[in-house]
């Protein structure tokens, strides 16, 4: 008998291992035999532990792969959002530019005067002066003394011209003076720049009916600015005792801080308001 087992030891061990393997394999199934159930009871916790660890590692790998993917996706989307924002800003800028140019074009067509459209390329580098640099010059027919206007009103006049650009003395400069008329009361005034955003209105008689908010337009009498261009609105009127004239100031209708495109009037005429 002993000889039988010793002769078939390898076969027996192999068979036992096969049974064990099958039992372990079938331990989770309902129809497992008694050996399978016993081995299943012993092996279950180990198997659960191994399964849990394996599952955790699997999930972690999955999450990692997902996170790597998500991060790449987020970076791609972030870049895309950035590009779209830039595009949107460009579109917005084009929209505003379009609106501005449309107004300018309408104004240019309505004024029936020879005009040259120009862009503001520079401003005075000193606070003691109020000047602009435009990108049009004598090559474009611009000459000294030409009025510079926008759809909103008068900007100033050209005081220096070179081939490709010109310099403009703004309405608010302390050396600027324009002959104007108060549109409603028909009072003749001199609009004098004084380095502040509100030029002075001179020579308004005390008997005048000038009121805050009245429009002031060019009179055409100074032979520089054609008649009828809007200069601004009366912003303050005060009566000082003993003074022969009223003290008044005007708020220009042109927003000098945001000037980008203007018209240089190169030919005479009259504007219909």
């Amino acid at each position, binding site marked *: 008998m002993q000889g039988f087992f010793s002769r078939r030891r390898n076969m027996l061990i192999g068979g036992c291992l096969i049974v064990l393997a099958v039992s372990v394999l079938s331990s989770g199934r309902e129809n497992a035999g008694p050996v399978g159930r016993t081995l299943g009871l012993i092996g279950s916790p180990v198997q659960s532990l191994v399964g849990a660890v394996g599952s955790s590692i699997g999930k972690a790998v999955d999450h990692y792969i997902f996170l790597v993917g998500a991060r790449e996706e987020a970076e791609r989307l972030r870049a895309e959002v950035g590009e779209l924002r830039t595009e949107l800003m460009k579109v917005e800028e084009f929209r505003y530019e379009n609106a501005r140019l449309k107004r300018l074009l309408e104004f240019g067509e309505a004024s029936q005067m020879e005009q040259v459209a120009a862009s503001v*390329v*520079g*401003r*005075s*580098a*000193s*606070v*003691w*002066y109020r*000047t602009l*640099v435009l990108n049009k010059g004598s090559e474009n027919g611009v000459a000294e003394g030409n009025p510079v206007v926008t759809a909103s009103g008068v900007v100033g006049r050209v*005081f*220096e011209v070179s081939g490709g650009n010109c*310099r403009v*003395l703004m309405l608010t400069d*302390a*050396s*600027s*003076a324009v002959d104007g008329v108060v549109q409603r009361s028909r009072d003749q005034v001199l609009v*004098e*720049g*004084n*380095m*502040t*955003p509100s030029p*002075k209105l001179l020579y308004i008689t005390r008997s005048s009916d000038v009121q805050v908010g009245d429009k002031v337009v060019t009179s055409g009498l100074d032979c520089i600015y054609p008649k009828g261009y809007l200069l601004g609105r009366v912003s303050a009127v005060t009566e000082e005792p003993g003074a022969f004239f009223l003290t008044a100031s005007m708020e220009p209708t042109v927003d*000098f*801080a945001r000037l980008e495109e203007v018209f240089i009037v190169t030919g005479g005429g009259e504007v219909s308001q």
Partner: protein
Amino acid sequence: MRAQAAWWGSLLTALILQSSVLPFFLPDGFTPDLTRGLVLWLALTGTPGYGVFLAFAAGFAVDLFAGAPLGLTALMRLVLYGFARPGRGILEMPFAVFVAGPLAVLSDTVVILLLQKVLFVNEVSLGVLIATALKQALVELASVPLIFIIMELATGYRADEAPV
């Protein structure tokens, strides 16, 4: 050589910034005159040399850019250089750089006050001139230290080590 190149480069940048960039972003009257800070640097540090000629050149360049009466800013910069030159060495004192800017504005304002009848066709009230100067002084309070830091980096020269 490096100091010369740095100064001329800074002057060109300053002119472009103050005539074509800053006025579009800053409110009226609050645009800094960067060349004023550069001339102050020249006067208080002596770097690069021949500061008086460079001060004149800086002013003249502003006149060309600003369309101001040719020579006015050049004169203002020369006066500023003369006014600030004896102060060489004061940068060793703490906070001296913050005082230098407003004092430079005072120098400019004095020139404008003395020449206003010649410069402006219209009458400009003293109140307006003082208000303009005050705005500028406020701006220079911030811009001059910044210019000095940039010049220190560009020239490799410490402003507080200027020989008296």
